[in-house]
């Protein structure tokens, strides 16, 4: 289990408004650096490769720390861990997907998908349920 103090420290650092920057000795593949430079100049994905890299790193760290918080919570309160069906329903609801109004189909689809693909995610269930609904129409 990840220590709460580590989570709090990462969150504190992510929330910092300290404008200080630092040169790092981080080594990345040169092809990746070149691809990033090209994407910045030609696709305008970010004002600079530095901003592109920092934004991507921030998003990855935020996701990692939030997942660590949830994992800790699931260990402490196992009944709070959502099932695949719960997640499929939540995903449909967040997007305003029409299948959000048919939780029964999503629950059945989650059970079917999970039987053959234990690592499936909620979007896999939505796709399967959509295919079933289309076939039945």
């Amino acid at each position: 289990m990840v220590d709460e103090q580590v989570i709090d420290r990462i969150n504190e650092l992510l929330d910092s408004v300290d404008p200080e920057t630092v040169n790092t000795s981080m080594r990345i593949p040169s092809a990746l650096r070149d691809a990033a430079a090209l994407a910045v100049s030609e696709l305008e994905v970010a004002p600079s490769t530095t901003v592109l890299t920092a934004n991507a790193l921030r998003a990855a760290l935020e996701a990692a720390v939030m997942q660590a918080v949830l994992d800790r919570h699931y260990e402490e309160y196992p009944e709070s861990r959502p099932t695949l069906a719960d997640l499929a329903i939540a995903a449909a609801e967040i997007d305003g997907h029409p299948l959000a109004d048919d939780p029964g189909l999503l629950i059945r689809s989650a059970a079917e998908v999970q039987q053959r693909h234990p690592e499936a995610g909620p979007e896999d269930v939505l796709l399967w349920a959509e295919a079933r609904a289309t076939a039945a129409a």
Partner: protein
Amino acid sequence: MRRVILLDNEAVQALADPAHPKHRRAVSHTQVAVSRKARAIPVSIAVPTAVRVEAGWDRTAPGWAFLNRLRIADIVLDRSHADAAAALRTRTRVSVADAHLGAAIQAADQVTVVTSDPADMRLVAGGKPVVVVVL
């Protein structure tokens, strides 16, 4: 385009309290948002500060550590939000917290609101397209 998931008072209470009957449901929405964020899909969870007041969510109180650690952002009641919320409240007679939610809805690009009061959310959204999730 970034989707923001807004929480109302009931959604905050449900997420904060493991004994709340809707806790797992509230966690499900959070887990979907976190999983999408991990896949570089732009999504965030936020709460208008007036909702935080209504919910009693004090970020300095240890009892709110779980929600604080989930990086749920504050939408502050700044001048433009206060103006929009005041106009909404005058027009619709909703609560201050719901008026602030309405101002946040109207300022967002893509928005989903998790709420126990879908009618009021549609009312404060005005003509703005909003996905309403009934907790």
